[in-house]
């Protein structure tokens, strides 16, 4: 393994936050809660664009599928 790769992995490890133990149910619900809170917070200021069904579906997909997928990939890269 090249030293550049080792160095990059070490840097990523330093960025890692301690992971508290959470149940499977909570882990599945957290992205939905995050999506809901952030959507309402942004939606009240940008009503015309955000409070449409298309934006809502895209927002929810981004939080519950997009972000966990990115997080998983980053975790895999760190190992």
């Amino acid at each position, binding site marked *: 393994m090249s030293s550049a790769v080792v160095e990059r992995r070490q840097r990523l490890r330093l960025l890692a936050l301690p992971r508290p133990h959470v149940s499977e149910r909570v882990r599945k619900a957290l992205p*939905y809660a995050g*999506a*809901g809170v952030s*959507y*309402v917070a942004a*939606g*009240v*200021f940008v*009503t*015309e664009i*955000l*409070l449409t*069904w298309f934006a*809502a*579906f895209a927002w*929810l*997909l981004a939080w*519950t*599928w997009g972000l*966990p997928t990115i997080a998983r990939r980053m975790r895999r890269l760190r190992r």
Partner: protein
Amino acid sequence: MSWVAHDLEPYILHRKLGPGFAISFLAVLIGSWGPDMFTKWFVHGLNVAGLHFQARDPVQFHRGWPGAGFTHSLAFAAVVGAIVYVVTRSRAWALGLALGLSLHVLSDLEDSVGVMLLFPFSTHTYSLGLWANVDGGSRMLDAAAYYSGPGMLWDALWVVAALASWRVLRASHFRESVALHDGLWARLGRRLPEDALLALYRGAVFYGVCRFTAWVLWAHVLNHHGFDFTWGGPHWAPAGHLG
């Protein structure tokens, strides 16, 4: 004109009908949104490249005849259901669309404009006049009026009913009662993982509950529109009528 009710009706219907009733959830949802999906932009107006597109008489266009008011009738629901059955032979989709469209019509009965329930046999509009329909104004005025009067209570009722139906949002219910009755989910499942399918399935309830919260906050925290829960309210808004 019900706002959040149309997003949540399909979940509650699904819960009421139970897992044994083969009906497409997507069809109910599309039916429930259908009558407004292609017309609302023209009702509230749209600006494209400096041009403004809007119906000259938004209320007449949306609910009347001549206009797109025929989409808010029980006969339209039956005809769409029949056409879909003839073309696709899918009972779950035909029934789902017909039920979804009918639910939309029935929940729009309550506002000041009403619907041509028995079109094409009659163009009489049936209305309970419970809250003011402000389709003739901008979307913001429409929202401000709706979330300041009995419309807000109507939507709150649907939000409570949807949250009480939380069991239909579980992954197990989706697998056993929703995806099972609709081949479209299996087709989508070839491209998307289950997490994404679940998010799509839960999307309308997410949209409904969140936009209810956001519009109420917008109308009464960011702005200060007056509440008026009396019959036909809010009376400060220019309520639309037909005829």
